[in-house]
């Protein structure tokens, strides 16, 4: 195993009455795309700001290649980041936006033109960035992250505002960055965006990492002991199986996920109650399922606090 690129350990941060981070810990390794997943408010952006030394924490550490961010002398040579694609002065051209950033690291203007070409903005480089679409701003933000050619790339919601072509481009791009040996950390609140892109997932909920594992391991764990039932009498079937102690959830128009009961017992129960069904099979979980399962508790908790404590 190679040395970790980013190590986040026990981050705790409170904003007034809100506990934004509650023991967030995970590791980002080089050569893979790490998806940083979680519902809005789970602490993803705060964690990224802490990694970049922008926000201070009450407890915990975040280290870049073993060192705190603020000790890096040319940080953009170590970590390239995109926190907010809108973070630019609207009347500055894209090229000039990258130019000041390059100058701050002692990089030449030639490098600016390289990264502009890399993200496909060459023809629009001298236009005011204020006139850019959100998708173009995301590309500009990626260019800024690539400026120092860093071994670590960290992007917060880079798919926001991208058209389908852009999303496909972005996925390929992230994979190619990881293939070059870079560590890539990408946050998203939608699993569909990083599907087939991330090799490793960190799932955040309520300020901590509730999962930190490889995608294959997560799917295998979530599939265990679950059965998919295909039936036209969904309501009836769910009532019968729930009564027998199973956990049931509708996953489609005529499919139900069942856990807590073996497949042969389900068949017996349905036959006894004369519920028609067309298929009972061992469940193969999708990444989406894994994510929903993991974050359900976090979302429910947030929904509850929202109703109880109006803000």
């Amino acid at each position: 195993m190679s040395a970790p690129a980013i190590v986040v350990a026990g981050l705790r941060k409170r904003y007034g009455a809100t506990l934004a981070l509650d023991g967030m810990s995970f590791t980002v390794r080089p050569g893979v795309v790490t998806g940083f997943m979680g519902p809005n408010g789970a602490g993803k952006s705060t964690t990224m700001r802490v990694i970049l030394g922008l926000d201070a924490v009450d407890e915990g550490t975040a280290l870049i290649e073993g060192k705190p961010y603020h000790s890096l002398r040319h940080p953009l040579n170590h970590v390239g980041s995109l926190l907010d694609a809108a973070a630019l002065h609207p009347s500055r051209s894209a090229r000039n936006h990258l130019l000041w950033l390059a100058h701050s690291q002692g990089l030449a203007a030639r490098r600016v033109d390289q990264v502009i070409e890399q993200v496909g903005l060459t023809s629009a480089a001298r236009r005011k960035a204020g006139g850019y679409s959100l998708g173009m701003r995301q590309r500009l933000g990626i260019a800024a992250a690539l400026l120092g050619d860093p071994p670590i790339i960290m992007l917060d919601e880079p798919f926001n505002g991208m058209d389908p072509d852009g999303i496909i481009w972005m996925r390929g791009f992230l994979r190619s960055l990881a293939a070059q040996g870079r560590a890539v950390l990408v946050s998203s609140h939608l699993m569909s965006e990083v599907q087939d892109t991330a090799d490793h997932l960190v799932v955040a909920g309520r300020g901590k990492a509730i999962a930190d594992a490889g995608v294959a391991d997560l799917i295998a764990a979530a599939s265990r002991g679950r059965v998919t039932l295909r039936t036209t009498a969904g309501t009836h079937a769910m009532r019968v199986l729930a009564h027998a102690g199973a956990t049931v959830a509708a996953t489609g128009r005529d499919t139900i996920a069942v856990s807590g009961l073996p497949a042969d017992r389900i068949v017996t129960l349905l036959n006894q109650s004369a519920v028609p069904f067309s298929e009972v099979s061992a469940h193969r979980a999708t990444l989406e399922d894994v994510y929903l399962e993991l974050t359900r508790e976090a979302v429910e908790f947030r929904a509850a606090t929202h109703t109880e404590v109006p803000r």
Partner: protein
Amino acid sequence: MTPTVTPYRPSQRVGRDGFLQLLHAEWTKFRTVRGWTVGTVVAALMVVLFALLAGVSSNQKGAPAVPIGPGGEPVTDSFYFLHQPLAGNGSITVSVSALKSSIPKGPGDLQPGTVPWAKAGLIIKQSTHQGSPYAAIMATGSHGVRMQDTYINDTAGPPGPVSAESPRWLRLDRSGDAITGYASTDGTKWTKVGHAQVSGLGSTAQVGLFVASPPAAWGGGTAGSVSTAVFGDLRVQGGWTGGEWTGEQLGGAHSPTFAGYPESASGSFTQSGGRFTVTGAGDIAPAVRDSLPTGGHLRDILAGTFAALIAVIVVGALFITAEYRNKMIHLTLAASPRRSRVLVAKAIVLWAVTFVAGLVGAILAAPLGERLARGNGVYIFPVSSSTELRVALGTAALLATASVLALSVGAIFRHSAGAVTTVIVAIVLPYILTAIPFMPASVANWLATVTPGAAFAVQQTLVQYDQVASNYTPYYGYYPLAPWAGLAVLAGYAVVSLAVAAVLLHRRDA
């Protein structure tokens, strides 16, 4: 298991970790936002534009010439002069047994009063032309005996007022260009008051008695006064032989530096036996701003500074608050985690850019405005070229330092409207308040001492004279602090704000 990978080796050469890189980055930021460069150019243009307007809009063509002293400075040279030409070297002696002044309390209503710098004594003057060189010894309203020469020199003699019970004897000796003044309380025991080298008196000078009564200054305004003195024991000796005395108001009834006699008063003299009673008004002294109300000075030409200030304050505040508004501050601080260095780099770039713009504006504006105003007959108080350079450099430094103050306050507030308002209130408001003529001198001087508006002192070119009572307030162009001391007050505010901003920037989440 995560596969073993070869960590990425960056291709980008790591440059030196230099503060110069930060300066370069901040300069690139500044020059690539058109609004900021335009705002800075507008500031410079404001200075020039106001100077042009001040020059073009003035019109004093045909106004009588301002009397100019031997040193090139404007003077008041209007007093009652009882004189005769005396050739060669000699000596003149007189006693003063009364000096009483009257001040108008209303139209035609003259009341006895004290005029501290009312003057009665002896004078040797090159000629009766205004501005000609002289030396004089005199009794004054409340400053005792003085010896004065060439308009600006003043030496104190025996103190105390004159009266019939306590007269003063005065004496002037001429030996070539050397004039020596003596005073006595009994007419026999003399003490030397002072000695003056007065060049240009000529072989034959006008010698005699004079009475002057400068306007009394109070409450921000002035009122013309008139004084009457009683002289006795007038003797010319030591080579001089006396002739006929001629009495006249020097410089005529009106002069740009003389407002004239109060209503129902006029200059005169009467002689009975050895006694001369002389009534006069006016002064023989350097001109000050309110004794030359039609004159202008460099600060008037550079009045556009306050408009330029507003522009540079807005640009200075936006240079940081724009980063907070659009969250670019995250990128800035991620690129440069040592935050105070970012703030200092911003301050240096902003100061330098604004200084250059302000200097170009002031260097163009001052001579242009002066030339136009003089072409329209306006008298501009003269300044040396080193003073003119100081005003130009000082104006540029004033604008630059104000913009850094705005930057610092912007970094503290993280909001442009609040920062701009605060800094304008701190600098421009005191400037406007001190421009109110009826503002009490104590309030105006306090404002020009403790607020950042004290920096306008750097534009002062007028000189205060102890021997001229006047309204020495910022409104008239006189500041309580020396030019660079005034600028230092603003610089102090800027440095303290910058330090507070640096601490907050370090402590707060970005």
